[in-house]
């Protein structure tokens, strides 16, 4: 055979020949990786299962709408807590989301200087702050100053948790939008803020929404800051300057009581909290992907066409 074919054979013989063994290694690694994932999911799955199992029996109309009864009586419900959670999440978002988005826009579009670098660093540190400290801070500057626990303080504390997350994810989403769209906008003679808000942000929408939902889920479950600011109560919301109940607080209180009925109510409250967070997530996603011509939007449109 000619020299090229000879050389080919020579080099080929250098390759590892143990193909069967390597396919086996391949399979083994796959199994290991898969099992790691399962191991990681099992605790999460079992939590969900536990919550559903234990909490489902507590759910009823009275449970969802009535004020708490006396401790240990097994009567009453968590109505104020549900209302309080929704109010506090809504209020915090109104404060935290716009500020967070604006900071994200600043860091991404105007952020090539020392000031922005400082803000970014500070932002990252802030994200990891223990929430109890933020609660104490809100306590000090609002509760003590006003002289009473109030919803303002609670919203303020939670927005402090929200805002770094939103800023960070907004900045990352905006950065993912290719430069070429900004260039196209510039070439059309558009001003920078028009390009940023009408073109870049709408292209980064899905990433930003993920970030916002992440932060909403986070604050939905925060307990420590709420202890220091809205304290909790057994009544429905009355005014912004009085304490208010919220689900994490209610769950905490109920779980500390020694009565079985209270424990059951606690499970029920936990289930409700998880359902609310899930609901917000799915609802917002559905709304936005339905509007856009995204993948899910198309799926939904197709299903609509079929069912019509």
């Amino acid at each position, binding site marked *: 055979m000619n020299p090229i074919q000879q050389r080919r054979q020579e080099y080929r013989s250098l390759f590892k020949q143990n193909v069967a063994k390597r396919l086996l290694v391949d399979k083994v690694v796959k199994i290991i990786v898969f099992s790691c994932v399962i191991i990681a999911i099992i605790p999460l799955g079992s939590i969900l299962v536990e919550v559903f199992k234990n909490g489902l029996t507590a759910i009823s109309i009275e449970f969802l709408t009535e004020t708490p009864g006396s401790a240990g009586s097994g009567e009453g419900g968590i109505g104020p807590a549900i209302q309080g959670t929704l109010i506090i999440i809504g209020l915090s978002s109104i404060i935290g989301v716009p500020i967070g988005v604006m900071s994200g826009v600043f860091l991404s579009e105007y952020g*090539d200087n020392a000031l922005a670098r400082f803000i970014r660093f500070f932002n990252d540190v802030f994200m990891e702050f223990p929430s109890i400290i933020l609660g104490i801070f809100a306590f000090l500057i609002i509760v003590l100053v006003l002289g009473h626990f109030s919803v303002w303080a609670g919203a303020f504390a939670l927005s402090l948790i929200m805002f770094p997350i939103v800023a960070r994810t907004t900045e990352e989403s905006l950065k993912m939008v*290719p430069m*070429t*769209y*900004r*260039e*196209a*906008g*510039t*070439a*059309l*003679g*558009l*001003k920078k803020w*028009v390009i940023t808000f*009408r*073109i870049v942000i*709408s*292209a980064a*929408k899905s990433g930003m929404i993920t970030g916002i939902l992440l932060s909403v889920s986070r604050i939905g479950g925060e307990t420590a800051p709420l202890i220091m600011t809205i304290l909790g109560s057994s009544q429905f919301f009355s005014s912004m300057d009085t304490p208010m109940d919220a689900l994490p607080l209610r769950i905490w209180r109920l779980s500390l009581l020694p009565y079985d009925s209270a424990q059951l109510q606690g499970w029920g409250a936990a289930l409700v909290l998880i359902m609310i967070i899930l609901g917000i997530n799915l609802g917002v996603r559905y709304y936005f992907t339905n509007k*856009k*011509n995204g993948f899910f939007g198309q799926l939904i449109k197709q299903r609509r066409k079929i069912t019509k």
Partner: protein
Amino acid sequence: MTALTIKPINMEYSPVAAPERRTPIDISKYKMIAENVTVSYGGIDAVRNVTMKFKENSVTALIGPSGCGKTTFLRCLNRMHDMTKNAKVKGKVMLDDIDLYSKAIDPIYHRRKVGMVFQKPNPFPTMSVYDNVTSGLRLNGVKDKKILDEIVEDSLKMAYLWDEVKNDLKKSAVELSGGQQQRLCIARALAIQPEVLLMDEPASALDPIATQKIEETIIELKKDYTIIIVTHNMQQAIRVSDYTGFMYLGDLVEFGETKKLFTDPKEELTAKYVQGHFG
């Protein structure tokens, strides 16, 4: 007799920088004049003292190896370098009789007179075909639906895209093919009623048929616009342009009528480049 070697002697040119035209220049016939333009990034010159004059309703091609500064120069003509940090631009760019770099004028207003089409088609992804074409207008305050409709139809017709999209203008821009997207970008640039059109390798990301359509579009548009196109495809430059400028390492080596530059270039460097000896 020995085999012939292609070694010409007694060439009638001298290897000196491209001479200025000896006939006096009638400024009014030039739509755009770039004078002594130098662009430097952080101390390094990407474009060095380039002077070029662009006649009205002509197509000028800029050729040269990668990194020679042709795209950088093109972006000077509509002040795109304002967006880039560290970019310093010196010199004058006259559009009709106005220096685009003078401190007295509003760059945004004048940028609308110079449209730009980029290498990779970049229609705004979250907008429909209609919205894309009108984006330069709506976002600049034009609201009258009738006028917008008219301009959309005109621009898409000029870009040879109207027949393909007229039945579904609300279609998302990203659903179009590559060639259609690029023609959409051309329509978008035309919608703001520019006088000059800058094109940065407009067909390099497209298949041969789409390329052909773009070239046909350019030749049609020449009647009403002044076009400057950067291309690395020399046959495209020959087919489409009236004048060609050859740039190398930031300098303008030669500028002249396309046919002359490609059949009998003045500079030896130009001859070497167009025949493929380097680059």
